[in-house]
């Protein structure tokens, strides 16, 4: 801007900026991208990368192994819509419990929010950016193994018909993954935003997910398991977000038999509860940040 010779060490004075400025939408996009990167520890220290990397490895490993197996003639073991159910529950719980606090609790802890709120964004933009970022991160974590499995399987498909069959199986699987990401990111963020203490936030998210899952499983077992026709066993899944998701999957025509929940004719109820839970989490998140912006 000024034609000062290089190397002169003195204060050049203040420079105004009269170039282009990003609008609100672009600012929110920048925050989303920043948050998405940090949900994988990118741009943060080595320690911040441990959980995301382990989670990715754990999720992808079965897909890799199975994809290799398929290449040698064995069948595809995992359905795209369930993948490895227990593993998915555990890994996703750990990932969300570790990374939702990374996205929100850190900023709460250091009281940096007033600096965001004093910038052009609106109240809801900050939680929106965080939510989109974590949803995208979860989506990546869930869908990448499915894609690995898919690519590995079609690579050894004998004809176009086989490829088409695989693709038809994959698409609902991707849809289920989207449902998981959308709901689990909301649950994780609203719980993590309750406290600025990261350890507590992680604890709250992890315990809530595992505890509700355990309670739900126990209820179903007590009522005779998923094969039981009793109403208790059918609605027992409603007590855990993971089982709600699985119930919705089965209701929507999921191919594989349910591992955890079996909604039977309570399917629509699972759908309604899933939507209500999502709405409650997002509403809670918005309300939380609305309050924070006014304090």
């Amino acid at each position: 801007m000024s034609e000062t010779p290089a190397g002169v060490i003195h204060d050049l004075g203040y420079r105004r900026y009269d170039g282009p400025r990003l609008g609100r939408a672009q600012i929110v996009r920048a925050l989303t991208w920043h948050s998405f990167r940090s949900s994988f520890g990118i741009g943060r220290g080595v320690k911040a990368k441990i959980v995301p990397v382990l989670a990715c490895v754990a999720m992808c490993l079965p897909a890799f192994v199975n994809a290799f197996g398929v290449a040698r003639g064995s069948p595809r073991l995992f359905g795209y819509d369930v993948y490895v159910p227990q593993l998915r529950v555990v890994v996703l719980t750990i990932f969300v419990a570790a990374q939702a606090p990374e996205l929100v609790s850190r900023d709460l802890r250091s009281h940096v929010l007033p600096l965001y709120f004093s910038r052009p964004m609106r109240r809801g933009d900050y939680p929106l950016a965080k939510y989109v970022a974590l949803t995208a991160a979860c989506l990546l974590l869930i869908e990448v193994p499915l894609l690995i499995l898919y690519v590995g399987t079609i690579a050894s498909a004998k004809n176009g018909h086989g490829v088409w069959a695989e693709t038809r199986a994959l698409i609902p699987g991707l849809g289920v993954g989207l449902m998981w990401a959308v709901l689990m990111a909301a649950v994780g963020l609203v719980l993590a935003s309750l406290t600025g203490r990261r350890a507590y936030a992680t604890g709250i998210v992890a315990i809530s997910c595992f505890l509700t899952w355990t309670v739900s499983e126990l209820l179903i077992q007590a009522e005779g398991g998923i094969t039981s026709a009793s109403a208790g066993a059918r609605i027992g899944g409603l007590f855990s977000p993971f089982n709600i998701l699985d119930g919705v999957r089965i209701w929507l025509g999921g191919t594989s038999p349910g591992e955890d929940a079996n909604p039977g004719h309570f399917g629509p109820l699972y759908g309604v509860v899933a939507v209500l839970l999502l709405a409650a989490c997002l509403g809670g998140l918005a309300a939380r940040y609305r309050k924070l912006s006014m304090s």
Partner: protein
Amino acid sequence: MVDTMPPSQYWPGGTTPPDLSAALPGGTTPPDPPAALPGGTTPPDPPAQAVIQTRALTKVYPGNVTALDGLTVGVAPGVTGLIGANGAGKSTLIKILLGLLPPTKGQATVLGRDCQTSGETIRTLLGYMPEHDCLPPDVTATEFVTHLGRMSGLPPTVAKERAAESLRHVGLHEERYRLIGTYSTGMKQRVKLAQALAGDPRLLLLDEPTNGLDPAGRTAMLELIGRIGAEFGISIMVASHLLGEIERICDHLVAIDAGRLLRADSITSFTAVSEVLAVEVEEGLAQLQQELKARGLTATVAQRALLVPLGGDDTYDVVRDAVADLALPLCRLEQRRHQVEELFRGDEGAAHV
């Protein structure tokens, strides 16, 4: 980023002042801040070009806490001190100006825009430094200020450049790659200032910038703020509860107490009033007060002394004569400054400027 205006005598370092209006979104012209520059004559009173204007602004928090009570005040371009004791409503006013808190009643405008309806636009023009800690310990100052520059709407490379420059302006050039957690309190305050400066604001709202600093740190911080106001051409409102501290760098002062305006005036008239003559006598204080009143001087009692506003040169003589005529034992006669408290309490009459 090419400037077309001729160099101005006020612009330091020979760089040219850019066209201010071009930087604003929507192409509207902001009120010029020329009076912010040193050497310019101080405008008489906050006129149409006020950077901040409030009308009967009232804020009642839940629980019936009245933080602002019908505050009407205009703030001219330049450096303005917002003085008030703890709980006077300074931070509340600043948050309303940022468009973050809705006022219960009344109206506030910043740079000609309504705070409630145009908060977003206003915030692109403002830089804000909160009173409390607001820095994450585990990032470097450069990363942090760059990120917040992005959040102010700067493109990526510009945000980087301006972060480096802002940190240089506040004197953290050498240390900018260190983690903020390793900074001293004084350095942290500077980072807070740098992030406010990064987005090239028209107006800075600084909430107690000397919070937690030692005397040397306070002086340095105030000099920095004074320089930003005088040389960078940015209007500043700086909140503080210490009048004596910020009066050095201010062109104007706004004093509030319990959410009400006490005085709003240029610094010269403020300090003129604050010059007083303190008279201490061993006895007959009330008697002397009567006598001075008879001679046309209104003296107020402060502990064991009488405070007489210092008018012209003859104030000394009148007081000396009065003491002599009453034959009172004079202990002390000295010129001193009003304490902030006295300014707040004693001059109710002068409050509505």
